[in-house]
């Protein structure tokens, strides 16, 4: 009873966090599509277009991609090679998955560091968008760092999940979303 309270609270928080990440990914991509559609309408319907819109759409998609990596990891839709995993027994699967998640965690941390340095440099040189908007570019470059951080958080959770008795996650459905 005493255990259930805090655990369910954490689980609720994590669930809310997941919903937030999923929603952010969806909103960024759909906003991109709608902005692009509006630009098409104004370009062909009213002979007016602003190149800034195209750049903003691209940045929406880039943010959506980097935020979406962690969601992809959670749903097991990231494209990966699973043949070896299928050949192993349950314990072997657990070990291989832990190894894969640990290696991916290292890459995610490197991605975060690389993204942070990139953002820092862009801020330092005061880089701005090459259109009339002249917005600073660093908030968009920060997507790489954010993606690395979000992915790292997700991977720590995935490693814990692999070793939980009820931790059978959606990873079995690997590569489900690939072309």
């Amino acid at each position, binding site marked *: 009873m005493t255990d259930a309270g805090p655990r369910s609270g954490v689980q609720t928080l994590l669930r809310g966090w997941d919903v937030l990440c*999923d*929603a952010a*990914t*969806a909103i960024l*991509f*759909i906003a*991109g*599509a*709608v902005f*692009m*559609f509006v*630009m*098409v309408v104004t370009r062909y319907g009213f002979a007016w277009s602003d190149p800034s819109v195209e750049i903003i*759409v*691209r940045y929406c*998609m*880039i943010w*959506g*991609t*980097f*935020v*979406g*990596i962690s*969601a*992809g*990891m959670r*749903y097991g*839709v*990231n*494209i*990966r*090679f*699973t*043949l*070896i995993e299928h050949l192993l027994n349950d314990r072997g699967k657990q070990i*291989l998955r832990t*190894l*894969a998640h640990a*290696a*991916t965690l290292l*890459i*995610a941390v*490197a*991605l975060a*560091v*690389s*993204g942070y*340095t*990139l953002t820092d*440099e862009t801020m330092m040189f005061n880089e701005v968008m090459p259109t009339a908007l002249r917005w600073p570019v660093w908030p*968009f*470059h920060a*997507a*790489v760092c954010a993606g690395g951080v979000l992915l790292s958080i997700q991977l720590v959770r995935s490693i814990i999940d692999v070793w939980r008795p009820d931790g059978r996650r959606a990873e079995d459905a*690997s*590569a*489900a*979303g*690939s*072309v």
Partner: protein
Amino acid sequence: MDIASASLLLVGVMAILAIIGVPIGLALAASGATYIYITNGVLPVSGGIMFSALDKTPVLAIPFFIIAAEILSRGGAIKRLVSAVDSLIGHLPGGLAVVAVISTIIFSAMCGSSIATAAAIGVVVLPELIKRGYPQRFSLGLIAMSGGLGILIPPSIPLIIYGLVSNESIGKLFKAGIVPGLLFGALLCAYVIVRTWSWRETRRVRASFAERRDALVAATDVLILPVIILGSIYGGIFTPTEASAVAVVYALVITAPEYHRQGFRSFVTVIARGCITSAAILVVLAGAAVFGYAMTDSGIPQSLVGWITDQKLTALGFLLAANVLLIFLGMFLEVISALLITLPIFLPLIALMDIDPIHFAIIIIINMEIAAVTPPIGLNLFTLSAIGKVSVGEVFRGTAPFLVLAFFMLALITYVPEISLVLVD
């Protein structure tokens, strides 16, 4: 770093990470970043390369076409499309099996993905095929193979990626896919008609005029979408990216009543699924850019060009070798990964061999169609296995006869470039 060490480092790190199950996009990025870090001592470059790889307008077409396909397939559009085609030709020899191929061709003109096409058509047609008495194995094989048309008939996501990496016109690549796509579709229809000629019980009763009219009216909005996408691209009205954004909004509009019926939660799930799948594919593109950068920097493609020149290989011999390599890689990698890993090597070689890059793109796509139905990593096999609730082996056994057709098509496309280039020229 010498070429041998660079090759070992790049391929070795990538292979080890991929084999243990690291997502392919991140494995590619990590191997490229390791090379860059060792040779230049800088890590931040990799994040910048990943960002730049996605910061291109044509890339937008990839998520937009995926999202549009997801919205259409879950929004009842495919059901209406199949009903309309079935009411027109379901009573003819081949019956629903031919309906499945023709519906796939039409859906392929709205969706750029093989697995999405196989899944969308499979969910609607597979239960009906079995209900009408078609053998399960035949039905599974037919849909798994014809799903491959999704990446050949434009719009095609692998062709967009090929255009991005090779700097070829995406519009021209799309044009190049039309004739081979229709030819392969016709080949599948012909085979199905011959194979099912004696299965009269599988044919439906001829639909009445009123039934046909009603089915066509119900599917008109779906049938218009390929016309909007392809007509606007080839009519010079929209770029492929603009057409993809229009496709998303159009798909939202025509499926709105169905999602209203299913509820807001279902709609949000579909959108989120499409967006997260898009992100998973774009990560591979971004990771492959780091890998490609390292590969070019190491000089591996250039030394391969030198080696091939020394071998005095003819263009036809090279194409044969390329096909063997692609089929082998396709057995273990899915389409996008195989494409992005091999292109930095292939592109200088095809320039050396004087092979048309647009023709080569179609050869790669046919190989990837074969890869999608070849074990152990044949994603269409997995998809149909999940839909039909049968083993992957069972689906593959059903696909085997269709694979013969695919290999025939591959030989035809490889050695008769005019089939791919007739509309481009």
